[in-house]
C-alpha cells in the first residue's frame, strides 16, 4: 500500500480513503485534521446555525439567542450594502450593482472581447453615474451620500479599468528611446510608488481643496477615484514592464521585418505575450487594488466596510460586529476569488496549444 501509493497517485486519482491513509505521514495528517474538525466544527455550527438568531429580524430575536445575530445583517443589509444613500432611492444603487456585476460576468468570456465591449462599458458606466447621482428625471443624490457596495465596485472597476490601459502606455513610455518621454514616465511611476496610498488619498482629499478654487474642484468621490486610478496605473505598469522585458528581441525584429508599425507590433505581437507572462503578478496587484479601495474610508467616503461600521452604530442592537464583518468578508471574497478564477482561466487559455 505504502510503496504503490506514490506511483499510482500520478497514474490515476486514488479513492479518497486510500489517499487519506496511504502512508504514515498521510495517516498522521488525516488524524490531526479530523481531531481539529471534531472539536471545532460542532461549536461553530451551533454558533452560526442552530443557536443563531434569524427571524423576525428585530433586536429582541438576538437577545434571546446565544449564537450569531444574523437578524442584524438581515435587518440592516440595505444600509450595509448602500450606506447612507437616501432610503426611498435605494433601488438605484441596487440597479447599479446588478449592472456592474452583470457587465463583469458578460466581459469574462473571450468571445465578448471586441470594440463593442468598450461601448458597452462606456454606456454602462455612464448609466451607473446617472443612476447614482441623479439628474434628468431622477432626484439628485450628492456623492457624499453614496456608500457601500456600489462605491467599492465603481472605484474598483474605474480605477483598474482606466488604470490598465494607462499602465500599458506608461510601461511602453518607460522603455521609449526618447529620453524626455522615458524620464516623465519614470518620474511619475517612481513618485507614485514611493508614496503610500493613504498619503495620496489625503493629498487628493485635503490638500487639493486648499490649492484649487472651489469652482474647478472635483468632488470628494471623484478625487479619491483619481488617486486610486493613478496608484493602480503606476503599480500595474511596472508589472507589465516586467512582461515586456521577457519578450525576446527576435519577436520585435520579426514583426518589424513583415512591416508592422510600432503600434501594430505592440498590440498584436509584444503586449499579448508580455501580459500572458505576467498574469500571476497582475492578478496579485489587481486583488490588492480591489481591497485598497477600502482605504477611501479615511477621507470620509463610505465604502462597504465603512457602511458596515456605520450600521453597527445603531444603539438598538447589541453591535454584532463579527456577523457584520463576516458578511462583508464574504462579499470581498466573492469579488477577489472571482477575479482570481478569471485570471486562472486566462492563464490556461494562454498555455493551451490551440485556441
Amino acid at each position, binding site marked *: 500500500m505504502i510503496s504503490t501509493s506514490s506511483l499510482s497517485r500520478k497514474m490515476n486519482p486514488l479513492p479518497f480513503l486510500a489517499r487519506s491513509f496511504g502512508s504514515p505521514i498521510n495517516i498522521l495528517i488525516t488524524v490531526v485534521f479530523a481531531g481539529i474538525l471534531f472539536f471545532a466544527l460542532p461549536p461553530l455550527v451551533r454558533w452560526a446555525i442552530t443557536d443563531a438568531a434569524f427571524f423576525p429580524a428585530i433586536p429582541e430575536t438576538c437577545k434571546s439567542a446565544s449564537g450569531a445575530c444574523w437578524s442584524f445583517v438581515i435587518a440592516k443589509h440595505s444600509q450595509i450594502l448602500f450606506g447612507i444613500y437616501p432610503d426611498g432611492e435605494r433601488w438605484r444603487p441596487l440597479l447599479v450593482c446588478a449592472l456592474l456585476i452583470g457587465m463583469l460576468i458578460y466581459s469574462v468570456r473571450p468571445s465578448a472581447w471586441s470594440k463593442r465591449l468598450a461601448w458597452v462599458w462606456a454606456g454602462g458606466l455612464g448609466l451607473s453615474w446617472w443612476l447614482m447621482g441623479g439628474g434628468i428625471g431622477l432626484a439628485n443624490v450628492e456623492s457624499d451620500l453614496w456608500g457601500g457596495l456600489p462605491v467599492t465596485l465603481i472605484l474598483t472597476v474605474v480605477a483598474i479599468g482606466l488604470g490598465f490601459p494607462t499602465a500599458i502606455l506608461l510601461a511602453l513610455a518607460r522603455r521609449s528611446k526618447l529620453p524626455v518621454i522615458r524620464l516623465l514616465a519614470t518620474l511619475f511611476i517612481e513618485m507614485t510608488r514611493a508614496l503610500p496610498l493613504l498619503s495620496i488619498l489625503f493629498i487628493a482629499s485635503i490638500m487639493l481643496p486648499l490649492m484649487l478654487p472651489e469652482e474647478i474642484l472635483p468632488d470628494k468621490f471623484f478625487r479619491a477615484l483619481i488617486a486610486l486610478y493613478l496608484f493602480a496605473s503606476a503599480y500595474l505598469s511596472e508589472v507589465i514592464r516586467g512582461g515586456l522585458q521577457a519578450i525576446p528581441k527576435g519577436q520585435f525584429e*520579426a514583426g*518589424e*521585418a*513583415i*512591416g*508592422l*508599425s510600432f503600434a501594430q507590433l505592440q498590440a498584436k505581437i509584444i503586449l499579448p*505575450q508580455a501580459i500572458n507572462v505576467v498574469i500571476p503578478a497582475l492578478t496579485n496587484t489587481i486583488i490588492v487594488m480591489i481591497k485598497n479601495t477600502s482605504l477611501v474610508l479615511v477621507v470620509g467616503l463610505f465604502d462597504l466596510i465603512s457602511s458596515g461600521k456605520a450600521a453597527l452604530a445603531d444603539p438598538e442592537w447589541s453591535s454584532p460586529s463579527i456577523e457584520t464583518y463576516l458578511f462583508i468578508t464574504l462579499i470581498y471574497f466573492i469579488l477577489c476569488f472571482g477575479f482570481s478564477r478569471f485570471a486562472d482561466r486566462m492563464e490556461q487559455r*494562454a498555455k493551451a*496549444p490551440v485556441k
Partner: protein
Amino acid sequence: MTDDNSAPAVTLSNVEKHFGSFQALRSVNLDVARGERIVICGPSGSGKSTLIRCINQLEQHEAGEIRVNGREVGSEPAQLEAIRREVGMVFQSFNLFPHLTILENCALAPIWVKKLPKADAEAKAMALLERVRIPDQAHKRPGQLSGGQQQRVAIARALCMEPSIMLFDEPTSALDPEMVKEVLDVMLGLADDGMTMLVVTHEMGFARQAANRVIFMDQGEILESAPPDQFFANPQHERTKTFLGQILH
C-alpha cells in the same frame, strides 16, 4: 512610387557600420541584379548578417548609400514602410509568434499592413502554406511544430507580403541535420521561380546548386565575389582558401 524598374534590386555603395568601436562593415559595395541569387559566406563576425540586416534596416548604416529597386533606404517611417513591403526576411531562430496559430502568423501582416480582408489574407496564407508543404499544420501553434516546419512557416510568412527580394540569415543553422534539406528544398523552389535572394549560409551545396554568385566576407569587407564554379574551384584570396578548406573538409 519612385521605383525604377530598370534599377538593380539592391545597390550598396560605401556602406559603413560600427557596433561601438567594432567595425562591422567597411566600405561595402555590392550590386544585386533582379532575380539574382547571392550566397554570402565568411567566418563568424565577418559582417555578413549585418550586411543583409542593413538592407531592411533592422540595423541602420552610418555612411554610404543603400538602394532597393532604385529607392534609397533609410530610417524615416515612410522609407521603412516602403522597404519592408519589398523585402522579406527569414531568421536563424525562425522568430514565429508563439501566441498565434500558424495561419495567424502568416495572415497577420497582410491583414494589418496591406489591409486585405481577413478571408483573402487567410486564403493567400493557406496557398503559401501549401507551397511550403505544411497546410495541415495551419491551426497549430509554432511550439507544436518541428524546427524545419517552423522555418518553412517563417518563409511562408515572409512570402505572404509578396516581397520582390528575400533575405535569409543563416536559415538552416539552428536546425537538426535531418531537417536542413526540407528547408533548402523550399528555398530552391523559390530560386527556380526567379526570386531575388540574398542568403547568408554555410550550405555550400545550396550555393553550388542555386546561387548565381558567391560572396566571401571577412572583417567587414567583401573579399571575393564570383560565380560558384569559379569560387569553389579557383578562389583568388588566401583567406577564402583557408575558409573553404575549413568548411569543405
